[in-house]
């Protein structure tokens, strides 16, 4: 169970905007493992974020099971490449997943670097006591 205050949502959105949208990411969504959208920032462009969150959580869960089959603990990063848009998933702590959507104009390496840099900040915001 998680209670999101207005203030916390604003802070989370702020981090997503400043750190990810600033490098050209078109949409960043923070979700939990149950598939709930916690905070998002960027252009949704008609993207159904509810379905996206549910599928992303399921995708992550399925991949974690694949990791186990291979004797890995987890794959902490997932990346799918499209013709136009690319999507990157990264685990934030144990319960959360950061979904990042960007075009080829933004280098994957930069996205990975930024996501890495902010994951601790996001986690602190997510788990802090009210």
């Amino acid at each position: 169970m998680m209670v999101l205050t207005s203030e916390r949502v604003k802070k989370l959105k702020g981090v997503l905007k400043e750190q990810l949208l600033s490098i050209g990411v078109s949409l960043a969504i923070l979700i939990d493992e149950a598939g709930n959208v916690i905070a998002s920032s960027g252009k949704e462009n008609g993207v159904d974020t509810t379905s996206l969150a549910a599928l992303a959580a399921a995708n992550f869960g399925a991949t974690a099971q694949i990791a186990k089959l291979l004797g890995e603990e987890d794959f902490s990063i997932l990346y799918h490449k499209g013709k136009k848009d690319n999507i990157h998933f990264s685990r934030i702590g144990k319960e959360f997943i950061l979904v990042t959507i960007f075009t080829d104009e933004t280098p994957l390496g930069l996205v990975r670097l930024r996501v890495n840099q902010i994951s601790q900040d996001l986690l602190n915001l997510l788990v802090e006591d009210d």
Partner: protein
Amino acid sequence: MALIDLHKREIHCKIVYYGPGRCGKTTNLFYIYNAVAEKYRGKLLTIETKGDRTLFFDLLPINLGKIHGLDIRIQLYTVPGQAHYRATRKLVLKGVDGIVFVADSLRKRREKNIESLLDLRNNLKEYGLTLEEIPLVFQYNKRDLVSVNIPLLTIEELENDLNKELKAPYFEAAAVKGVGVFETLREISKRTVKYVANKYIFAKKTAKAQGGIL
């Protein structure tokens, strides 16, 4: 895991329709989707295999009106029923707040119902949950087949097999025709919202939904 978003003033709960393969979980969701006005529902998401079986899950978000000024948003999920999809079922149960167990009334499916309930119990256990604690409603589906002389389990038999100790509410249903579908949804929604509210926000106050589709 329910989510309370005070920013958007929404409360999100997850209800999972569980049960053996072909018992009618997806049919429940389809019926609800078609019967509910567009403004109260989101998109129906289904991931189907060849044939008409659920591969991963179906998802239908619906709005149930307000409770203490918060919009109640419920996400209805189904699981794949076939025994070998256990890993996916477990994934879908992650963060569940309420469960509808859809049992197949066909006599020849008796063992499948019992196995599926046991599988549910085991999967919940891995998340530290029990059937006794979590909101649970049974739906005994396909009751309409009695009129075409297909051997069905009696309600007493189903109750004895599945609900003897749990004593959860049950509904007789014919999901294809919509019989019992909303009765089931109404009961599980009521229980789930009450459970989430009592447990986390409005300590012991009676939660009552106002408006919405139910």
